[in-house]
């Protein structure tokens, strides 16, 4: 049995005084590929942001590698091996592409790796972050997080706005990272892609988990999928 890397126990979190996550508990084990799906506004992003320390956590415990991290500021969590690709991309607009990447560099990562992954970024390396196209920003957001060599990568809809070819390439990259032992948590709207990629799937509804199981289980159980996510057969 692989060890638990990240654990949320009865987490209550939200914005200001409102509670979005209500007693959420989940475990992520070392090296796995976990997908989180759910309708709009159910709290997927909030879950990832809470793990990263960006939303207000009212109660509950989050442990990373067995150590409670609830009180830690985001940068300490990052240094413990967490990496987040935010849904809104959040490119630093006044930094160039290259500086955006440098801002993420830890543990001697090389920017060339990022350029190998996304040659488009290399072409635009001197451009200001604000001038990038939507898809270029998405690539940069992913690449920037990878510069920190995180053990566990939280991806919030990383395929959004990318051309299908790039999507495929990116999914392949994630698979490769997973093979190299990185743990990946993927929030994705495209249920089909998510189910193909992940081993395990969690469905969130109203700030709580309503399904947890193997991806294959969901794939074969259309009725279940319909009920929670409201999708007709995953299209491919």
């Amino acid at each position, binding site marked *: 049995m692989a060890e638990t890397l990240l654990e949320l126990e009865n987490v209550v979190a939200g914005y200001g005084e409102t509670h979005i996550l209500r007693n959420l508990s989940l475990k992520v084990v070392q090296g796995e590929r976990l997908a989180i799906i759910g309708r709009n506004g159910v709290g997927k992003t909030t879950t990832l942001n809470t793990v*990263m*320390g*960006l939303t207000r956590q009212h109660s509950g415990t989050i442990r990373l590698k067995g150590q409670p991290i609830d009180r830690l*500021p*985001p*940068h300490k*969590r*990052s*240094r413990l091996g*967490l*990496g*987040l690709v*935010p849904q809104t991309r*959040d490119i*630093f*607009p*006044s*930094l*160039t592409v290259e*500086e*955006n990447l*440098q*801002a*993420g560099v*830890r543990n001697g990562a090389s920017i060339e790796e990022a350029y190998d992954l996304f040659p488009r970024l290399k072409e635009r390396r001197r*451009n*200001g*972050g*604000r*001038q990038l196209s939507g898809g270029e920003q998405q690539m940069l957001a992913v690449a*920037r*997080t990878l*510069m*920190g060599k995180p053990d566990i990568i939280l991806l919030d809809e990383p395929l959004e706005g990318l051309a299908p070819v790039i999507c495929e390439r990116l999914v392949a990259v994630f698979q490769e990272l997973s093979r190299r032992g990185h743990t990946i948590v993927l929030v994705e709207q495209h249920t089909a892609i998510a189910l193909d990629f992940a081993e395990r799937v969690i469905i969130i509804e109203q700030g709580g988990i309503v399904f947890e199981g193997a991806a294959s289980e969901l794939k074969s159980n259309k009725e279940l999928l319909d009920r929670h996510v409201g999708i007709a057969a995953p299209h491919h």
Partner: protein
Amino acid sequence: MTVALSIVVDGIAYGMILFMISVGLSVTMGLMRIVNLAHGGFALLGGACAHVLTMRYGMPFVPALAASVIAVIVIAIPLERLVYRHIYRFSELEQVLATIGIVFVMIATVNLFLGSTLLTIRMPPEVSLPVNLGFKVLPLHRIIVIVVGLLMVTGLYLLVERTRFGIYLRAAVDNQNTAASLGIDTPKVYLAAFALGAGLAAVGGILGAELLPIEAYYPLRYMVLFLTVVTVGGMGSIVGSFIAALSLGILDTAGRYLLPDVGTIFFFLAIIALLALRPNGLLVRPS
């Protein structure tokens, strides 16, 4: 011809003082993007400290300068931890209110201990010796300021554009949450930058005191001047502030030489024209 030369020399010497007194602001307001109306407050504290050290305790100028800058940084650090840290998150308008509040308290404090008269700083007498440049006589003080100003702008440029700290700072300012989730210790970066800004303000206050003498109401009296330099230079650009300070110095000086009667109107009209043409200042970061 000699008039033109005089304008340039006097203008640069004056511009360098403008740069000196506002460079701290181009760090806190330009780079960190806090509407820091309390900038002059730190200059005031630095100047007041140097006044006390040189006049009351007879300390020589250079050690007094160093001690005063350190003192201001020592004041700035807890102030950042307790107050400014929260101000970063405020909206711009709230920042206006908060930093005005701080500046009032600073003024009141200096007023309480030292009164509201001019607080002179004793400099070594050689500093005010006229130096003959052949075509022109310039006080040694101005030459020192020019040299220090050049060193400062180079150092800051390298720090902001060429070091990891510079990248971290700019990233943290763009988006604190994202920077933090990339592992950047944003509170520390902010603290360091803020202390730097405050320290520079103190240096500027002290070295600029020859022209803008220190007194309790200094921060309010010259607020427009600080803002002008940073605005014309462009937010976030140290080099921009530098060029702006020099241009404004030359412009103002030219106005005084050539159109003394309407110098002020000329100066502000020129600023209006400049900002109408280049609304984001002379130099801005890529946007």
